[in-house]
């Protein structure tokens, strides 16, 4: 991570939900807990208090940063898979939503300028490509970037998902080409059928 990214991350980060007095009292509580455990001798060794306070403060800052840098939680993924986020975005941007992407930098949406996105089945994808870990909600027929190449995401009538690209094929049963280097999980999102028509007999 470079400096601008860190600055952006810190700007975007929010403080944990604590009262103002919490942080003022934090060092005292650490000391008090250590005293109760009988391991603290403040008067005889004042440097220990300083060291412990610095260690606690360092841990607090690191935890704060890591907490906000951590990959998306399973809860976040589940929220995307369950569909409420998708439904809300579809309502806000009808015909414009290409994809919702959750990655280490947060939640993003890919929107079209015009309402020219085909109404197809929504698909939930989890992609692990080396260190990168992304969850994408998109639609059958849309193009995404995966394994260093452009691929088209498709679902069939049974809800099975396939990804096809130049030298790239992935399905749950078989993968070939550069798809073999990427870990993919995919499911059709069943609850969002905003554009489907009721079947009629032939």
């Amino acid at each position, binding site marked *: 991570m470079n400096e601008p990214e860190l600055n952006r991350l810190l700007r975007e980060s929010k403080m944990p939900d604590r009262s103002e007095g919490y942080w003022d009292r934090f060092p005292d509580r650490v000391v008090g807990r250590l005293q109760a455990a009988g391991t603290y001798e403040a008067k005889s060794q004042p440097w220990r208090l300083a060291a412990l306070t610095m260690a606690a403060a360092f841990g607090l800052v690191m935890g704060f940063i890591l907490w906000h840098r951590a990959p998306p939680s399973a809860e976040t993924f589940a929220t995307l898979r369950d569909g409420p986020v998708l439904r809300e975005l579809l309502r806000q941007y009808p015909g414009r939503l290409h994809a919702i992407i959750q990655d280490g930098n947060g939640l993003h949406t890919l929107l079209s300028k015009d309402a020219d996105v085909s109404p197809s089945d929504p698909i939930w994808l989890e992609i692990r490509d080396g260190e990168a870990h992304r969850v994408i909600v998109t639609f*059958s*027929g849309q193009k995404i970037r995966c394994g260093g190449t452009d691929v088209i995401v498709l679902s069939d009538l049974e809800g099975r998902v396939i990804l096809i690209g130049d030298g790239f*094929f992935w*399905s749950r049963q078989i993968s070939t080409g550069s798809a073999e280097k990427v870990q993919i999980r995919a499911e059709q999102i069943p609850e969002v059928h905003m554009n489907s028509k009721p*079947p009629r007999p*032939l």
Partner: protein
Amino acid sequence: MKTAICILLALPVVAVAASDKSAPNLHVAVFDFQTDGNLDAQLGVPNAGKVIANILASDLSTLSPVTVVDRGAVQQQLDSRRFDLFKSMSPVDAKGLGRSLDATTLVNGRVFIAGDGIVIAARVVSTETGQTLGAMVKSDGTTPVVDLLSNLSMQIGRTALVQLGAEAPSWGSAMIVGSGKHGSFISHDEVACVMAIDGQAVPDEVVQWEHKRSILPGIHQVFVRYYDGTVTAGYNFILQARPGASYEVRYERQSQLNPILWIQDQGTQQPVTIKVEARVDVPRPTAPTASEWAFGHLLPPYPNPNSVTTPLPKRTK
């Protein structure tokens, strides 16, 4: 093999001619499939993606109520930028391309080499809404490619109908059987039977000529054998099998002349192939081996015909 490829390349004409004109308004335009890597070289077939699209279009045309847009017109009107497989298609573009082709459904796809077999993936786009769905088949090392394409065509047909708001239909297999007559005390039985389907040998074909063989809807290569105990002949037919149809291998032969062979629809009693005068051959005709067929190397090995002992039909008194 060249003959087989030429026949397959000519299939679009057959496909359109065989379409059911009274069907609902469902017209499928099939574009050339893309091939991955050096698939053409591996198959030994130039333009394998085109051949696959031709077979697929022909298979689709057998699936009532599906009709197929003429493949020549499809390729002539194709603007690759408007129907690039790797580009999302907007409803407006889908509608425009559908209008120019008079198509309700657009199909393209790609063929991948996967281990010892292949994967064929298709994209199915509704020109009414732009809704896009997929379909795929993969070979398990034993399934003939034509059967893969038959399965893929049925998936595409169902998908196209559902996109139009219809219920997904199902199409059953066709059947084919031989014909013959029993000989007398001094003469052998005389039969015309199926010796191989898509390069896969039918065991004991002469003895079991009355046994019905199941074939999936669509294009198949059916090798037919004539045998009367002393004289034998064979011919390789291209059969476009309709779902649920029953076919029969038929023959005519005047004494000392070559037999005439064809395949007939049992329902209509009409020939569905050309009638061919098959040259009388050595004791057992040489069926095309799997490796000689257009996608032969992907088919299981075909036993050497010369190494197989064919039991004679039983004599009847």
